[in-house]
């Protein structure tokens, strides 16, 4: 078995990062000019990394599938970004932020990485503010904070319900500044379809130009993936429709191990499915649970209008089950609790698959204006989609696929198991364990991009200063390009009758039913069999119009769906292997008497890192033991 070396620095937790930074090799400015770095993905992680690397003087090439970096899905993060500033004097500290994230992740994240994320959080806020991000402020002119799920302090910085948009546009501006300086070159409308590895090192990528259809080769001294998560595997999710797994998957197939693929967060508060052609589920920010109360009728099947149901006939089940945290329990707990009520017949709405999120009490206490100031854009969004007014009647919400804690395995330097290939932001696995706490994804993206990767990548690049510019005529590029073209031709030649989206929808349903909020050995095995069957149908009955040498959005979808089949299977493998419940991974067989997740620290305190062994072959699982030096593992209780 391969020994995974996480390269966690020695020394006390609070000193690891600073000691490590002091020991990392540097590259002098003259040499930086000679080195090229490819960054794939231009969201908050990719854009901030590209900006910071450009500032340092490297030659950076950034690729994204969107027409502009400003559209990357970080833009949709709503609620906020956490930092350990302790501006509220409520007992917050770097250690507490670390502890909340580690506990929130149900002790399945790497301790040292989580601590570092908390450690750089304050710098992140300083930097974003300096970039002109208009965070909310208090009357005295200082920055304001609010609270989020799974914590008991107020440490979340926000810009109404558009924090992700504002942070991304800040990072995009720092990237644009480098484009103006010539250190960064942008390649939009490109889909990364393969990673090129030469002599064991990542040296470039193969992309499809989404306007011309041309397959292009791009070389570099190192490749950084900032390609986000794969939550769209469920088809219906809170993600942008273009979000996909393909870049990370190409890396996996070239030798980068994939860690904890089954750890997918199901967000508790999304607008429920309203029609059969629904393409997307819209998130209603977790911040709403600060002022909204979740409830269902006490009586199963109560069809009365919510406003007609009196107080004593309502079950505020989160407050009932978790008095200490109430409506602000972590996402996995809130999601399962909603599913439990709906499965038991207490769900509301036509399908019975939703619960109420009610602002009545907050509006009575604080006034409509105060609620408007906090959430107006979310309320408007809700009204546009559903046609209902959440100021006068409760929202209806249901859990939806949202965030992938799993991702490419990386060491402390954020390098994958392929030398010279780095993964940052949601595309890696390192910071959120089995469940991510709200407001920590933006933190990780900006932390990785601005403050961590620029330090750690130099340690690798210091060994590359004598390496000439990568020759894209090398046989490895040739081979990769031919294989990519063959994959495209295979799909184009099926000439079947069903659209890529129709397969995606069915694939998503299988995973939602069998590898979603609740899993069981039997269900997972059934899901695997159904996936096999559907995958065969996909390769024999896919309908793809047009040609590959022009704009072809159906081809883009089909390539992504082809990968989602494989991603889904790895998720199931991973979920089957983990005979415990932890965070978002809830195995029916492993629960406490009160229906809470039952962790098994003795046997499963490890990261499951999966190695690709060939198409159609069973992947091999490697374990990185999780060693906790600073905390004692506890049952995660929010009661």
């Amino acid at each position, binding site marked *: 078995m391969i020994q995974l070396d996480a390269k966690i620095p020695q020394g006390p937790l609070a000193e690891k990062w600073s000691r490590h930074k002091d020991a990392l090799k540097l590259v002098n400015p003259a040499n930086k000019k000679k080195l090229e770095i490819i960054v794939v993905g231009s969201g908050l992680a990719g854009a901030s990394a590209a900006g910071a690397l450009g500032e340092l003087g490297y030659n950076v090439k950034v690729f994204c599938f969107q027409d*502009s970096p400003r559209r990357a899905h970080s833009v949709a993060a709503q609620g906020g970004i956490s930092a350990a500033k302790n501006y509220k004097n409520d007992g917050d500290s770097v250690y507490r932020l670390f502890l909340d994230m580690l506990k929130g992740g149900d002790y399945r994240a790497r301790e040292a990485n989580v601590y570092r994320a908390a450690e750089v959080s304050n710098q992140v806020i300083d930097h974003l503010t300096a970039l002109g991000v208009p965070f909310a402020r208090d009357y005295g002119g200082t920055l304001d904070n609010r609270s989020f799920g799974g914590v008991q302090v107020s440490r979340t910085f926000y810009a109404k319900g558009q924090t992700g948009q504002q942070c991304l546009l800040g990072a995009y501006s720092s990237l644009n500044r480098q484009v103006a300086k010539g250190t960064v070159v942008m390649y939009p409308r490109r889909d990364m379809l393969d990673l090129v590895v030469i002599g064991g090192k990542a040296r470039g990528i193969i992309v499809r130009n989404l306007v011309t259809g041309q397959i292009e080769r791009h070389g570099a001294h190192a490749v950084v993936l900032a390609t986000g998560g794969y939550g769209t595997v469920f088809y219906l999710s809170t993600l942008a429709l273009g979000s996909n797994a393909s870049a990370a998957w190409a890396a996996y197939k070239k030798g980068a191990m994939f860690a904890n693929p089954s750890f997918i967060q199901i967000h508790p508060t999304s607008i429920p499915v309203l029609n059969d052609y629904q393409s997307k589920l819209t998130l209603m920010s977790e911040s709403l649970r600060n002022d909204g109360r979740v409830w269902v009728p006490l009586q199963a099947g109560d069809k009365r209008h919510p406003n007609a149901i009196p107080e004593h006939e309502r079950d505020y089940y989160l407050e009932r089950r978790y008095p200490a945290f109430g409506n602000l329990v972590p996402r996995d707990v809130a999601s399962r609790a909603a599913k439990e009520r709906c499965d038991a017949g207490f769900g509301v709405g036509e399908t019975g698959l939703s619960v109420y999120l009610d602002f009545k009490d907050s509006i009575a206490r604080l006034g409509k204006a105060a609620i408007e100031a906090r959430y107006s854009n979310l309320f408007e969004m809700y009204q546009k989609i559903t046609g209902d007014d959440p100021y006068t009647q409760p929202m209806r919400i249901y859990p939806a696929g949202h965030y992938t804690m799993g991702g490419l395995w990386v060491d402390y330097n954020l390098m994958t198991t392929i030398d010279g290939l780095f993964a940052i932001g949601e595309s890696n696995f390192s910071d959120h364990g089995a469940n991510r706490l709200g407001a920590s994804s933006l933190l990780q993206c900006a932390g990785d991009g601005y403050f961590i990767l620029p330090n750690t990548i130099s340690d690798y690049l210091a060994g590359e200063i004598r390496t000439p510019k990568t020759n894209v005529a090398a046989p490895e590029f040739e081979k990769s390009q031919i294989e990519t073209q063959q994959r495209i031709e295979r799909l184009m030649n099926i000439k079947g009758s069903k659209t890529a989206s129709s397969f995606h929808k069915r694939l998503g349903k299988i995973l939602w039913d069998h590898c979603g909020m609740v899993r069981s050995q039997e269900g997972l095995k059934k899901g695997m069999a159904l996936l096999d069957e559907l995958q065969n149908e996909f390769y024999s009955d896919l*309908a793809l119009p047009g040609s590959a040498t022009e704009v072809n959005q159906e081809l883009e979808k089909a390539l992504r769906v082809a990968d989602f089949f494989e991603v889904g299977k790895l998720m199931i493998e991973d979920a089957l292997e983990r005979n415990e419940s932890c965070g978002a991974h809830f195995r029916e067989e492993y629960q406490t008497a009160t229906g809470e997740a039952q962790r098994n620290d003795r046997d499963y305190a490890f990261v499951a890192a999966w190695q690709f062994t060939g198409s159609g072959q069973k992947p091999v699982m490697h374990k990185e033991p999780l060693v906790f030096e600073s905390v004692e593992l506890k049952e995660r209780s929010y009661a």
Partner: protein
Amino acid sequence: MDITLKIWRQKNTAIKGKFENYTLKGVSPEMSFLEMLDYLNKTLIEAGKEPVVFEHDCREGICGACGLYINGRPHGPLTHTTTCELHMREFKDGDTIVVEPWRSKAFPIIKDLSVDRSAFDKILIAGGFINIDTGAAAEANSILISKTLADKAFDAAVCIGCGACVAACQNSSAMLFVAAKVAQYAMLPQGKVEANERVLKMVDSMDDLGFGFCSNTYACEFDCPKGISVEFIAQMNREFLWAKTCKK
């Protein structure tokens, strides 16, 4: 409900396009406008025809990718609503809906309803940023900003870069887009330092890229899905004049 769609089809930038009519049966009022187009495309593909290319991504009104001219109005009939947030419940059984791409010299058509809006990126690259290196920032609360000003800066910063302002303007002017960014940075102390240079560079870039002059009709504000105010254009004009004066 059953509807008739009149959609602009164009193979690529070079080949001239034309309207084509489609009858679509069984549209649900719960569908979003883009889900209706997904449905149309499904029927087209299953009939062996080429689907309609249109831009979209987040489908919740924040990424700015979608943007269609619907019945003669950018993003359709509702105010403060992006195309992806528009739902079919706003239309009636038997309606004919005309769907066109943004039309502006600065936004060439790529295919069907998809246009190239990279001119917006170019304007921001010309100066839409604050010059600060990573690591150089002061403690965030060391610079106080009044809540009123911070909120105002936020109101300008909500632009999603969809291009509706350009599409709405009879001169295809990008003034509202540029003004929103100029104003956001000019209002914040962090961006104030280089406000003069910024506004000159961004306005020059806007002019070079083929956008027209402000038409003073306020159509941009009216059709902006985020409701960005033309007051920011007035502010940009002041900033511009002041910057010119200082330069002399």
